[in-house]
């Protein structure tokens, strides 16, 4: 066997798992969901094809309100995570000295490895009527009776930012890490104020990290299930909950698949729009490291 034959063979061998994975676990299943979403039930065991499930979705304001609400809250969470995470990432990458930065980065990573459930659970223990904050406020005499801090939108947002902010910090740290401090120095020497230097040098440099973090955070938030449901309670109105309900509680797979397609298309559209507006591409941001 010649060398080029061997090389072709290894290329083929390397390609096989990739193609099987992509085809069997990603592409065909997505097509399957798309197919299912176009199937309408007209009678027992009798189906036709059409856009009926999508019409049902549009005809029921609760459904599209939930989708819009999920998208809007996810955007809000993404922005908050960016604003909360940026100073931290900047501190770790640029301000802290060599030794403390590793420790700080590690401290950021530890909650990342704890499951969503445990984190949501911690918030419940903290915020519920008989929880720590309510108890502490009563002991301090700020409030008379116990207060319920769970089951409102602010709590859901605080909890969501908490679960995703680390996914913002990690890409930001790795981009800011590559920035040479002499760029900042040059900016000051040319007479820039701190704000100008930040706006004209730091932010453009960090852009790939900002976009990567925002994409991951947005998708994670829009697709999250536990945090909105556990912290938001019965009326959290989260879209993944609707999907779960259609699939598992009502066993209405056709309409669940429709919801799935809509969520994916809608969130992809938001991400695409974000990439367009910032002039970045998926491969150059998310997959950078």
């Amino acid at each position: 066997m010649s060398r080029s034959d061997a090389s072709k063979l290894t290329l083929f061998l390397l390609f096989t798992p990739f193609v099987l994975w992509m085809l069997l676990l990603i592409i065909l299943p997505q097509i399957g969901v798309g197919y299912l979403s176009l199937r309408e039930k007209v009678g027992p065991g009798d189906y036709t094809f059409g856009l009926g499930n999508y019409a049902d979705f549009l005809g029921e304001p609760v459904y599209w309100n939930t989708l819009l609400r999920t998208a809007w809250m996810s955007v809000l969470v993404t922005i908050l995570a960016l604003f909360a995470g940026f100073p931290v990432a900047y501190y770790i990458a640029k301000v802290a000295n060599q030794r403390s930065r590793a420790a700080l980065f590690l401290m950021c990573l530890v909650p990342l490895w704890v499951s969503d459930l445990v984190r949501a659970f911690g918030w419940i223990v903290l915020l519920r009527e008989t929880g720590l904050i309510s108890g502490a406020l009563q002991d301090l005499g700020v409030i008379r009776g116990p207060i319920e801090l769970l089951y409102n939108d602010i709590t859901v947002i605080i909890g969501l930012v908490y679960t995703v902010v680390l996914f913002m910090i990690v890409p930001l740290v790795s981009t800011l890490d590559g920035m040479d401090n002499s760029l900042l120095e040059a900016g000051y020497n040319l007479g820039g104020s701190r704000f100008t230097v930040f706006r004209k040098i730091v932010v453009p440099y960090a852009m790939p990290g900002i976009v990567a973090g925002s994409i991951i955070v947005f998708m994670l938030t829009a697709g999250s299930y536990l945090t909105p449901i556990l912290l938001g309670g019965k009326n959290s109105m989260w879209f993944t909950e609707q999907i779960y309900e259609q699939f598992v509680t009502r066993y209405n797979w056709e309409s669940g698949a429709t919801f799935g397609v809509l969520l994916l298309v809608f969130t992809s559209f938001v991400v695409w729009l974000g990439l367009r507006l910032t002039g970045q591409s998926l491969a150059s941001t998310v997959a950078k490291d």
Partner: protein
Amino acid sequence: MNVAAPQSTAMRWIYLAYMLVFFLYLAAPLVSAAIFAFNDSLFPALPWKGFTLDWFFGSTEPMLGLFHDRRLMEGLKNSVVIGLIVSTLSVAVGTCNAFLFERRSFPGKSLLYVLMIVPLVIPGVILGISILVFASMIANGVEEVFGWEWDFLRPGTFLVVIGQFSFLVTIATLVIAARLRKFDVSLEEAALNLGASRSRVLMTVTLPYLTPALFAAFIVSFLMSFENFNTTLMLVGSDAPLTITMYDRMVKVGSTPVLNAVSVFLMIGSGLLALLSIFAQRGKGQA
């Protein structure tokens, strides 16, 4: 002098205070979940009734500890089994992918690379339902045409493994590819020039260099499999992993301190594993 740091004293203090508040925010729910695992009370709530380890080791109702709770231990076992299988598969396929994308050139490479990243940004619930739908289609088809019952394609451990694998491959690939990119190809060429065969070079030069990354990818996949909820939720059968068991307990019984005990156990366990993966990447990684 660090030009990146704020220069005025007031700003520096404000910045430090912000960092402090942020880390308090990070720690608060974890610490508060942990505290009540040691409260001698039937509810994970105030008032504090004294220190106990019963929620870990207690063997009688109502204070049945984590280590004697059959369902929770069952869930833990399922999680470990699923995690080990998924991580092994992900590292194996991830290694192939890393070699494919780092070493080879082929038409459409950049497009396929984007495709490789995509599972990372598809919401977990959607990955879950798509695999559920596809597997059921195959199972129904096979049953209709051949009359075979392919039960492994119905919700259960096999589908959970497949579902988690579908996105963990991407993560494993990225971790391994990052290290492969730093590898100096001339080392391989030198070995080839000295007469080693391709497979021998792979076994004695390339793979040993990659080992820390393979190890790290394995641990990262294991941790992510262990904590995964969204994808698993749609695919789970009767052998539920720990996160699902905990969630069921929480929805049905309400939160009890034994769940706090499980949380403490998970925090310590995943913290240790995460540290291990960081040291694996760093320790030998400098060579």
